[in-house]
């Protein structure tokens, strides 16, 4: 289980992640950010499970999350989630 915190322009993203052969098998995201609608956070975690923990795949998954849910996260961009996840994954 890897853990990391990343300070985005607005809010600290805290990620706990479990990997199995470089693929995310479990992930929990917390922090003091804003997301509308709030329950979209669970969808974000769901789309990340099964994703390979590299920048390219994570970015694609997070972008797909934004376009499918239309979630809004003031001053937090897809790259910020990815950075937090990569740090937690240890690479």
């Amino acid at each position, binding site marked *: 289980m890897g853990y990391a915190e990343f300070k985005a322009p607005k809010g600290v993203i805290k990620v706990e992640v479990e990997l199995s052969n470089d693929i995310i098998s479990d992930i929990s995201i917390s922090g003091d950010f804003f997301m509308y*609608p*709030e329950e979209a956070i669970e969808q974000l975690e769901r789309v990340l499970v099964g994703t390979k923990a590299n920048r390219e795949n994570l970015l694609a998954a997070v972008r797909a999350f934004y376009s499918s849910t239309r979630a809004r996260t003031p001053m937090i961009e897809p790259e910020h989630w990815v950075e937090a996840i990569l740090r937690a994954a240890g690479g």
Partner: protein
Amino acid sequence: MAKEWRLLPLRVDDAFTSMAIDEALLRLNAGGKSLNTVRFWRWLPSTVSIGCFQSVEREVDLEVAKRYGVDVVRRITGGGAVFHDHDGELTYGFVCRQDDMPDDIIESYRLICGGLVGGFERLGLRAEFKPVNDIQANGKKISGSAQTRRWGSVLQHGTILINPDVRRMFELLKVSPEKISDKFIASAYERVTTIERELGRKPSFEEVRKAMSEGFADALGVRLVEGELTKEELELAAKLKPKYASDEWLRKR
């Protein structure tokens, strides 16, 4: 003729009741059964509220909270952990139809926080809105807000720092191991301020409430009319309260 919004009297409640009232107002406003409303309250006992995405274990020292008799509650809004000191903090709540707010999230914070900025000015303080959700005086945070949008309505609530016990705040919040050192407290004083510190006196809760209410009315271009919670609102709040008091909700994340 300006639109009329409701202004509720100052209440003092436990955390779970206050959070339940907020949600009841939001639900009933969205259902067309509650007026757009501005309200203010104090917390008894003092409480730490955490944002809906925060992990309680990571943010709050529950042992310290227990020792001081401080309640801990999870909000339905995002953002960070706040220490609501019974003697030194006033919280506002604001509920209105989504149609009465800008769709853009930061712009809606700017509009509502503009009411608070006007309130601070009425108290004799120069304050400014810092996006997304803070208000600063002299470059230091003096108020923070959090907003949610559900079912067609907007709820925003936030903290107004009158003279909270900052040392206790840092004991309760897990900031870092050195958090209660004098050095850390000193650096916190560089980032956070209070009305008492900026004004050189402690205004009464009623004085702050009046200033902020006038600020809201001005910023929104509405007339605030004193009213009471309805029976329907109180009944719904009573139904919602157990969720906020539950361990399941507190430890959701």
